[in-house]
C-alpha cells in the first residue's frame, strides 16, 4: 500500500489482521496478516477461492465471528473508530449505521416469519428512531431506490413470497436503510441467475456511486470483479497476494496465482485444448506450508519460496504483490 496516493484519509484501515479459529482439535489460520486501506467512495474487490479467508476478513470487520473460538489480532479502523475495541453498544450503532453487510443467500439472511417492511423498519427505528409510519415511508423510498416493482405490495410480503432477485434487492435496501458509509458484500450475486446477477451488479455500482459509499465486495468471479471494482485484492491462504487497480491486476497480473486464476477461468478458450489449470488444491489452513503458501502449486517456484514468506513488493505505484519474483 503506497501512502503517497492517499490524498483523503482512508475510511477503512486494516493493519496486519490475523484471525485464528481455535478448537480442541486444531487451530485454523484463516487470515494471516492482511492489510489494506479504502478511501471513501471506493470499491475494493477481494478476489479469492474457498479457503482464501475473504469471507472471514469481511466478517471480522463486522465482528460477526464466534467470539469463543476466534482469536483476532491486528487493528481495524473504520472512520477512525477501532472496531476491535467496540463494546456492545458501540457495535450496535456501528452495524447497520456506519457499516452494513449483504450476504450471499438472501433466503437465510432474511427472517422468514416477518415481513420485509417489519425487518427494514426495525433497523431504521433502532438506528434513527422515529415512528413506524416514518420508517415505512423510508422503506418505500429505499424500495424505489433499488428498483423493486410494485413497492407497496412487496413491502408487506414475506421473504419466501419474493423471487431470488427481489429478495436480494430487499436485502440491499435493508442494508442501505441507515445510510452507511461502508458496504460489505459477501458474494451477493453468486446465487443469482445470470440475467438477474448483471442487474444487481449494475444496481450496486450505481448505488455506490450515487450514495458515495465505500464498498468491499467479496467474490470468486473475475468477471464480477471487472464489472464492479475500482481496486482488486487477490487473497490466497489468508494473505493478500496481489493488489492494485482492477484494469492493471486483470490485464497485467504479477503474482503467479493471479496469472493462474486468469488462465484457468473459462472464457473463450479454444475448444480442442486443455484449460491451463492450477494443479493441486488450496492448502489446509490448519497446517500452512512454510514459506509462500502458493509455493507447492506454483510453476515458477524457487528454492527460496519454500522458506521465506514473501513480503509485499511494489512493482508500480499503487500495486502490490507478495512474490519473490516480483521486482520491488
Amino acid at each position, binding site marked *: 500500500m503506497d501512502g503517497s496516493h492517499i490524498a483523503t484519509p482512508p475510511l477503512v484501515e486494516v493493519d496486519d489482521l490475523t484471525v485464528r479459529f481455535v478448537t480442541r482439535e486444531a487451530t485454523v489460520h484463516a487470515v494471516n496478516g492482511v492489510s489494506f486501506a479504502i478511501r471513501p467512495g471506493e470499491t475494493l474487490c477481494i478476489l479469492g*477461492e474457498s479457503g482464501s479467508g475473504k469471507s472471514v476478513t469481511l466478517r471480522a470487520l463486522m465482528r460477526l465471528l464466534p467470539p469463543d473460538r476466534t482469536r483476532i489480532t491486528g487493528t481495524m479502523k473504520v472512520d477512525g473508530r477501532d472496531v476491535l475495541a467496540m463494546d456492545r453498544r458501540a457495535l450496535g450503532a456501528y452495524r447497520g449505521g456506519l457499516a452494513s453487510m449483504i450476504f450471499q443467500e438472501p433466503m437465510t439472511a432474511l427472517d422468514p416469519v416477518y415481513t420485509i417492511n417489519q425487518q427494514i423498519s426495525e433497523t431504521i427505528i433502532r438506528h434513527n428512531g422515529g415512528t413506524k409510519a416514518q420508517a415505512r415511508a423510508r422503506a418505500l423510498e429505499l424500495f424505489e431506490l433499488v428498483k423493486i416493482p410494485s413497492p407497496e405490495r412487496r413491502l408487506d410480503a414475506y421473504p419466501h413470497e419474493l423471487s431470488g432477485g427481489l429478495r436480494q434487492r430487499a436485502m440491499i435496501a435493508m442494508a442501505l436503510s441507515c445510510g452507511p458509509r461502508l458496504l460489505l458484500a459477501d458474494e451477493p450475486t453468486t446465487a443469482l*441467475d445470470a440475467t438477474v446477477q448483471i442487474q444487481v451488479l449494475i444496481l450496486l455500482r450505481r448505488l455506490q456511486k450515487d450514495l458515495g459509499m465505500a464498498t468491499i465486495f467479496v467474490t*470468486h468471479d*473475475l468477471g464480477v470483479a*471487472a464489472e464492479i471494482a475500482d481496486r482488486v485484492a487477490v487473497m490466497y491462504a489468508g494473505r493478500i497476494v496481489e493488489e492494485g487497480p482492477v484494469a492493471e491486476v486483470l490485464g497485467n497480473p504479477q503474482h503467479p496465482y493471479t496469472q493462474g486464476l486468469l488462465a484457468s477461468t473459462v472464457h*473463450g478458450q479454444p475448444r480442442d485444448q486443455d484449460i491451463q489449470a492450477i494443479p493441486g488444491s488450496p492448502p489446509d489452513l490448519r497446517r500452512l506450508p512454510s514459506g509462500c503458501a502458493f509455493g507447492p502449486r506454483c510453476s515458477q517456484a524457487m528454492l527460496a519460496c519454500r522458506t521465506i514468506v514473501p513480503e509485499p513488493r511494489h512493482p508500480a505505484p499503487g500495486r502490490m504483490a507478495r512474490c519473490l519474483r516480483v521486482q520491488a
Partner: protein
Amino acid sequence: MDHPTLTHADDADPRDRGGTAQPLLIARDLRKHFQVKGGPATLFGAGRAAVRAVDGVSFTLFKGETLGIVGESGCGKSTLARLLLHLIVPDAGELIFDGDTVAAPDGITVRALRQQVQMVFQDSYSSLNPRMPVQDSVAFGPYVQGRSQAEARDIARDILVKVGLNPALFGPRYPHELSGGQKQRVNIARALAINPRMVILDEAVSALDKSIEAQVLNLLRQLKRSFNLTYVFISHDLNVVQYISDRVLVMYLGHVVELGPVDAIFDRPLHPYTTALLGSRPSMDPAHRIDEPPLTGDPPSPINPPSGCRFRTRCLHAEPICAATVPVLGAWLDRESHVAACHIQTPGSGHSQAAAQGSA
C-alpha cells in the same frame, strides 16, 4: 498431456445398435408437470396450479457429441436431466435410446437404460453417502449391476485411478474429508464405474472453485475421449458451456427456445432470450463494462406461465401474435440445424419482423 493409464478408445462399442448415423438419444415432446400442493381451496382439484417444469421438449443427441443445455432457474433443465434417466417418469412424450423406445413393451427397459446412461450430480453435501467410504460409494453401481463385491471393489479402484485419485489414499476416506474437487472426481468415478455410453452432467462443475473447475473440465474432456462417451452438459455458466459443448440447447420456462451448433448459438443467436443471456455475462474488461442489463425483472415462475411464447413478457420484440400462438422450434433433427422457437424466425408467422411465407 494424457494421463498414462488413459488410452483412446479405438473399438466401436459392442452395445452400439445403429451406427453413427443413428442418434444416441431422441427426446420427443417430453412433458412433466408437478402438482402444486394447494390449500383448502384446491382440495378437490378445482383450479389446482401445476408447475409446468418441462412442457414439450424435443431434441436429438448424436453419438460422441457434447450437448450443452443452458437456462436459468425455473427453466426445467434439472427436471429434464432426470426425465432422461426416468428418475422422474415423464407425463407425456417419448425417449428413444439408440433406436429403442424407453419403457415401451418392445423397447428398452429403464433398468437396461441405466446400464448405459449415468448421471453426475452437482457437488453438494448430499451427493455422496456421508457414512460410506468413498470407494464403497463408487463400487455400489457395479455391485448392483451384478458384480461380486470383490469385483466391484476392483472396478472402483481402477476407476478412481482414472479420475486422478489414488485409491489407496482416497478409497477408505469419507466424503467430509475430501475437498470439493475431490468429491466431484468421486462423483464422476461413480458414474463411470458402470461403464455407460452416455453421461448426463447436471451442474457438475458449478459448485467448484474456478481453478478446480478447470481441472475437472480437463478431466471430463479426457475421459470422454478415452471412454468414447456422449455427454449432456447442463449448466447455467455460458462460458463453460461454450468451451465444452458441440451443440447447445437453450431452455426457458420448460420450453426449448433455441438449438444449434455452439459457434452458431454464441456468435449469431436467433432468439431474443439467447441474445439477452449472452449479453448478461460480465465483461472481463474493466474498460468495457455493461451499462444496461439486457433483461429486467426476474425469470417468472413456471406455475401458470404466460400464454403463447413464454418469453413475451420480457421480450423487446413482443407483438400480439406472440401472446396468441406458441412458436414452434423448427427442424430439430439434424446435427447442423440452428433453430429457434420464435415468431420472428418463422416465415409467415404474422410477426412484423418475420419473413414472408414461403421464403428462406
